[in-house]
């Protein structure tokens, strides 16, 4: 049980306005620990944007459909709009602000610049975090919907354009920069 909850809710509803169920928790984000007191309803996305001033992750649909809020949780890509911050105590979160190594951009960031893989840029932080997750998943040998059923198991997956399009399908780009995004991800994958 979570000992940090300030209201454990035996009665089913908070007693008075201002007495909303909240928790004091520590989030590990981009290598730094942040201790916050948050209403239980706060999503990880809102904690990042409104409480930690990390506005890279974007709120697009807020329903897990567009991917603009994608961050890495323990190295795996996830929609931060559907994760409750209170459930993420103990996780290691990486946002787009944490992808670069100091002043040295992540290879995916370099490739997006090189390929001009964006127009308005709103979806780009999510695209970058998602692509970082895709590269890790391929290294682990994770298959996708378009991987042949008889593909070898337990070896890294090769990422051609078809694999990249399928694996990145959870990230929408209203500007339609998809061809360049696929090229940028392929540059880094190969």
């Amino acid at each position, binding site marked *: *049980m*979570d000992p940090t*909850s300030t*209201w*454990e*809710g*035996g009665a*089913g*509803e*908070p007693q008075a306005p201002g007495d*909303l*169920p909240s*928790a004091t928790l520590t989030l590990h984000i981009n290598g730094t620990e942040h201790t916050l007191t948050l*209403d*239980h*309803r706060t*999503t990880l996305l809102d904690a990042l944007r409104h409480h930690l001033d990390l506005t890279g992750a974007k709120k697009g649909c*807020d*329903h*897990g459909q567009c*991917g603009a809020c*994608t961050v890495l*949780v323990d190295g*795996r*890509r*996830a*929609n931060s709009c*559907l*994760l*409750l911050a*209170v*459930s993420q*105590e*103990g996780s290691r979160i990486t946002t787009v602000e944490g992808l670069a190594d100091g002043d040295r951009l992540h290879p995916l960031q370099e490739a997006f610049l090189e390929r001009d893989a964006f127009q308005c840029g709103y979806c780009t932080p999510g695209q970058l975090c*998602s692509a970082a*997750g*895709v590269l890790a*998943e391929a290294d*682990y*040998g*994770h*298959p*996708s*919907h378009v*991987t042949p*059923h008889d593909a070898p*198991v*337990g070896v890294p997956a090769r990422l051609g354009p078809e694999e990249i*399009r*399928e*694996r*990145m*399908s*959870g*990230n929408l780009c209203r500007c339609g920069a998809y061809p360049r995004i696929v090229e940028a991800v392929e540059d880094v994958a190969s």
Partner: protein
Amino acid sequence: MKPFAYLRAETVADAVRACAAHPGAKFLGGGTNLVDLMKLGVEAPGLLVDVSRLPLDQVTDTAEGGLRVGATVRNSDLAAHPAVRTRYSALSQALLAGASGQLRNIATTGGNLLQRTRCPYFQDTSKPCNKREPGTGCPAREGAHRDLAVIGYSEDCVATHPSDMAVALAALDADVVLHGPEGERTVPVTGFHRLPGDNPDADTVVRPGELVTEVLLPPLPDGTVCLYRKARDRASYAFALASVAAVLRVRDGRIEHAALAFGGLAHRPWRARAAEEILLGAPATEATFLRAADAELAAARPLRDNAFKVRLARHLAVDALAELTART
């Protein structure tokens, strides 16, 4: 979203106890559907019992030669598991045909089974819906039902179950293990989800306070092959209009074992027993496959705008069975 209390459970017993002690409590797995429904106002639990970090995250071999899948195993990990990919490829394919990479990394095995329908009226609290608010009516019968049920529905509800994974599990004869205040019980996946009847608010046979803890996959009969096929409006990241999971063994041109389940057609994964009866012992030919699909789908009663789903399902079944025959 309504305020709620939150507890992170450390053990199954803790989780079951906490949920049983609080009317209106819900278990939180990955939350990809539940948190979304809370934002929409469709769900308003007073307490969330977080079960996502329970030690139920392993896939292990059973003594019988099958697999035991913990309820918190993430959809992406289950799809990528070597034993699932090699022995239960229909399950891996079904998981990979669902949602997006991000969502599959969060979503759990137990939560996937328990996800709610994506019927637009169910998700919109400004509209009547017998599933969300019993007795208010079903606007989908005359309204936007293109994606909804063609078989097994009732006057009260024409919703479909959205899971791909559950369709594969139905064809693979998997069982679901539940832990509740009154102990442990095992339910076949084919009996886990309900037809709507006159109480569509109940999606499943899960009793109050019961927690899904495991899914058990029995060993497939020697020499069988299996696959999952899905038709949808987009090439990726969309719910099924129709789908099929098939398990087949053919020897000397005759079908020795057949299991078939449809997705996207009904309130639950639709195990096609009438089709299987025709397949078993028959020659593995397109004529047999058509006869089997038609026997099953004869019970379909499509609504005004979704008759195409019956034809889709028929073609998917014939195509899947032909491909499996070619592989054996």
